[in-house]
């Protein structure tokens, strides 16, 4: 019985390592193919690395849970995940707002220039 539990823990650990590695590699490949700008990759890479570290060193999650006072260590995993995603989403909102502003300026300048050209 004890043996079976150990095998299961080992399995999930291997899966977690593979998953985290896959995320990091996938992001790196997107940068390599110029599909993703470095600016937007940092947060994803950071999250991938955090998960990689957590899955490599099993005791870390327990220590972290005790530190912040979470009784059930897997819940700490969700906390880290959600906080990470929140940061990324806010970053997106900022990026979209910047895009909207530059988009507006472009449209205004285009309109003004077109009027100037057509008047001549």
């Amino acid at each position, binding site marked *: 019985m004890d043996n079976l539990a150990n095998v299961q823990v080992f399995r999930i650990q291997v899966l977690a390592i593979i998953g985290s590695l896959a995320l990091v590699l996938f992001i790196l490949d997107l940068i390599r193919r110029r599909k993703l700008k470095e600016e937007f990759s940092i947060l994803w890479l950071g999250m991938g690395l955090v998960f990689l570290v957590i899955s490599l060193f099993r005791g870390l999650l327990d220590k972290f849970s005790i530190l912040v006072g979470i009784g059930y260590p897997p819940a700490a995993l969700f906390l880290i995940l959600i906080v990470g995603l929140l940061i990324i989403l806010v970053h997106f909102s900022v990026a979209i707002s910047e895009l*909207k502003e530059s988009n*507006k300026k472009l*449209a*205004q300048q*285009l*309109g*003004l220039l*077109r*009027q100037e050209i057509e*008047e001549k």
Partner: protein
Amino acid sequence: MLPAHMKKIAIVPAYNEEKTVGAVLAGIKEFCRDFDILVVDDGSTDRTAEVAGTVPGARVVSLPFNLGIGGAVQTGFLYAQKHGYDLAVQVDADGQHKPAEVRLLLDPVLKDEADMVVGSRFMEKGGYRGRVWRRLGIKVFYLTNRLLLGEKITDSTSGFRAYNVKAISLLSRTYPDDYPEPEAVYILKRRGMRVLEVPVQMAGRQAGRSSIGFFGSMYYMVKVFLAIFVLFLRRQD
């Protein structure tokens, strides 16, 4: 500078107003002979730009897509700034502002009593007063204005306005995207500029329907309050 030597421009933001823009431009030409006219066609899908383009003397800036009233009006400010206008008035293309009353707005700017003048439909009785949610919102803004600015602005949502060169310059750099009118009052006051109201009469819509219903009004209020709140947090730059 003598008022006669000032370069004046009428900015007419228009979004799908092909039915009314012609009459509005004719009115401006009749009552504001010394004004150049700039129509900002905000990505209209109807014939607004063509109709405006056939009016002699009216210049048309066509935006490639719809920016919303804020982006359109700001385009007018950018144009005025670029071409060295001393004075601008903003007149809606839907016909609710009366070109004959532009003079009322102009007067305090010419006398250098204000940097921006707002035409208010609530200072005197009569005329179109807007729908119930709009009126409620305007009341709330009025109380906010009194509390925060000590200023009695009775019709802060009115887009019938006159600006001097200082206001044009500031607003060409900073102007909100949507529901910009109440916020613009704060932007100017924050820079120590003078905002004045004069009574005008407004007509009801001649065509089309206001896009602002109940939820629109709620969003309008939340957005403006948020903007005002943040404006007071932001350091003056």
